[in-house]
């Protein structure tokens, strides 16, 4: 017979169940208790995506290589533009990996609530783990892409101490992706219409993000005093900072701060909205 639970020395876990949102302290306690669930969710995500395929998890490596290959093929004929001396394919791919992480995380997060509703109806777990695990599940693809870009960059003769900027640029990409993913998780969970709309929204956003064109080109289309608007887009500054780390100064770095500001704002809005919608999901799912 198991007597160990009587002799446990640590103070037993105490939970209060009341109306209203859980206090933040409770949320934290749950995070700690359920932390290993993140790993299970990531594993489940991969299994769903690659489970039925022959090549399985190899796709995680093949996909970024494929998109890199397609992009360089597409842009190899086009040389440098607007005074950028970087090989254009490299320029595009370096923007593409951040963008594709950002947009996949955001569009896929909008469907999470629907995918997990059978579980949510039956068991309690921290719902915030759903968008977090989605980000983690997409991370390997991003890292493979990053690896390819770094090799390409060094091979093309770039890279200097400037690469230290990556220490800021990479967390920035993650954070801006998370802020928008969280927002689309909270909204997409409650309004399915948004799920239909999101792909179009991201298609539009793609053209407003400096992925396949340079800041200079876009900047020249706008009067100087309006150029900052482009960097209200959280991922735009993150991508430019990333390029800054690889190739050195290409764009006014202070604009990255603007993107960071809007990232933080979206994060706060996302968290607040999530807390509000979560309470509704409990009763209405």
């Amino acid at each position: 017979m198991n007597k160990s639970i009587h002799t446990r020395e640590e103070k037993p876990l105490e939970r209060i169940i009341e109306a209203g949102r859980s206090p933040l302290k409770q949320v934290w306690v749950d995070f700690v208790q359920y932390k290993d669930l993140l790993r299970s969710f990531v594993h489940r995500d991969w299994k769903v995506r690659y489970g039925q395929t022959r090549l399985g998890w190899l796709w995680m490596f093949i996909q970024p290589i494929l998109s890199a290959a397609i992009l360089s093929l597409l842009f190899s004929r086009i040389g440098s533009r607007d005074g950028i001396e970087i090989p254009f394919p490299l320029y595009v791919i370096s923007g593409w990996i951040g963008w594709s992480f950002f947009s996949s995380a955001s569009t896929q997060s909008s469907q999470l609530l629907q995918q997990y509703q059978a579980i949510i109806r039956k068991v309690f777990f921290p719902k915030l783990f759903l968008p977090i695990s989605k980000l983690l599940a997409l991370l390997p693809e991003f890292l493979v892409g990053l690896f390819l870009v770094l090799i390409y960059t060094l091979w093309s003769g770039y890279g200097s101490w400037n690469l230290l900027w990556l220490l800021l640029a990479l967390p920035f990409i993650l954070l801006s992706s998370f802020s928008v993913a969280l927002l689309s998780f909270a909204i997409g969970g409650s309004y399915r219409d948004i799920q239909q709309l999101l792909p179009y929204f991201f298609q539009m956003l793609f053209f407003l993000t400096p992925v396949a064109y340079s800041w200079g080109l876009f900047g020249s289309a706008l009067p100087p005093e309006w150029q900052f608007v482009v960097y209200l887009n959280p991922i735009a500054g993150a991508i430019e900072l990333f390029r800054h780390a690889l190739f050195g100064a290409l764009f006014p770095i202070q604009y990255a701060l603007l993107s960071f500001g809007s990232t933080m704002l979206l994060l706060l809005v996302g968290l607040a909205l999530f807390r509000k919608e979560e309470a509704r999901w409990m009763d209405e799912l």
Partner: protein
Amino acid sequence: MKRIEVEGIGKRYERNARREDLLMKRFFSAGSKKEEFWALKDISFQLKEGETLGIIGSNGSGKSTLLKILSRVSKPTEGRAKLIGRVAPLLEVGTGFHPDLSGRENIFLNGTLLGMPRASVLQKLDEIIDFSGIESFIDTPVKQYSSGMYVRLAFAVAAHLDSEIVLVDEVLAVGDLAFQAKCLNKMQELSQSGRAVLLVTHHLESLNRLCDSALWLDGGRMRDFGAADAVSARYRAEMMLRAKEIPAEQRSDRRGTGDIQLKKLQLLDEEGKEIQELEVGTLAQFALHIHSPHLQLDQLQNLRIQLNLFSENERFIGCYDSNMDLEQSRMPLPIELKTDLQSMHLIPGEYALVARLLINGKPADRLESALSFRVLPNARTSEFRRGGMHWELNWKKSEL
């Protein structure tokens, strides 16, 4: 030491307040009035370690809502509950299993979903696999499992959680008899090892066997709270009474179009006398009165009578259906109908009938517990408890 303290918990739902997925609907329905109802109201009780509390009540009495609140799937509207210790919910088994994952992978997914650290799942892995008894399939995707195997694995995970509080919902009704017995033993072991166990059940037998005390919920309110055997006896008595005391025609808890209604349903013995008990294998007949309460109809065609049979623990046993002859005949209303004298083909136990009258295939009247009766053992049968079919077959010697 107290493990669960519930004080004045209440839960209000808004009827028709299912998620409004369409933006349009949400905008336009902003001003519309919603009907509110309390699924739970003024629920208070305490549970100490080593105790097992059973919760009984008919469908819709608030049992699952209470369990949802205690397992934090849902929030109460008012009141407060305190849980001291880790909680292991054995709710619907297999929740969170993913069909493409193997049994072993699902153990990890399920264990962590119930709040267990990965390390302790790993530590108990052998014990869990051993308990489930499906060792040889543990690396097969669970989509290839039979439903029995699925349930075994799920129960095994949940039963091996490190916890001080266990919440159980109906898991006992699944799996084969041997595995059910194993589950019962495991539950007994859990409460003897000092855990506080809360068990929601329809099954009065397991209530009496496993629980110290019982809480009877009726329409979201606490109807009775006390020693398990006393509460379950009162519960059983009331359930039988509901069917017997209130004449069918006075009951309002019915569904269907209402064009015709069941006025009376009786079980008669060979002499035509009304009975509530009969021995296995004796002959009896059903008698039934149908009328049209608002006199919409004075005659009737295409009638079908279905008597759905449930055992004492509300498990569906089968259906006594009417044949085509009835559907083809034209009848005046009101009318009394009788079946032939025949065996009920049931093993000993308590049974209740849900009566359904259909006209042209559409439900005109549906009445729960329209009739309840008991089948008694005879010299040749033993005392079964769960309810089920009993058929005596004719065997003839065949010439070789």
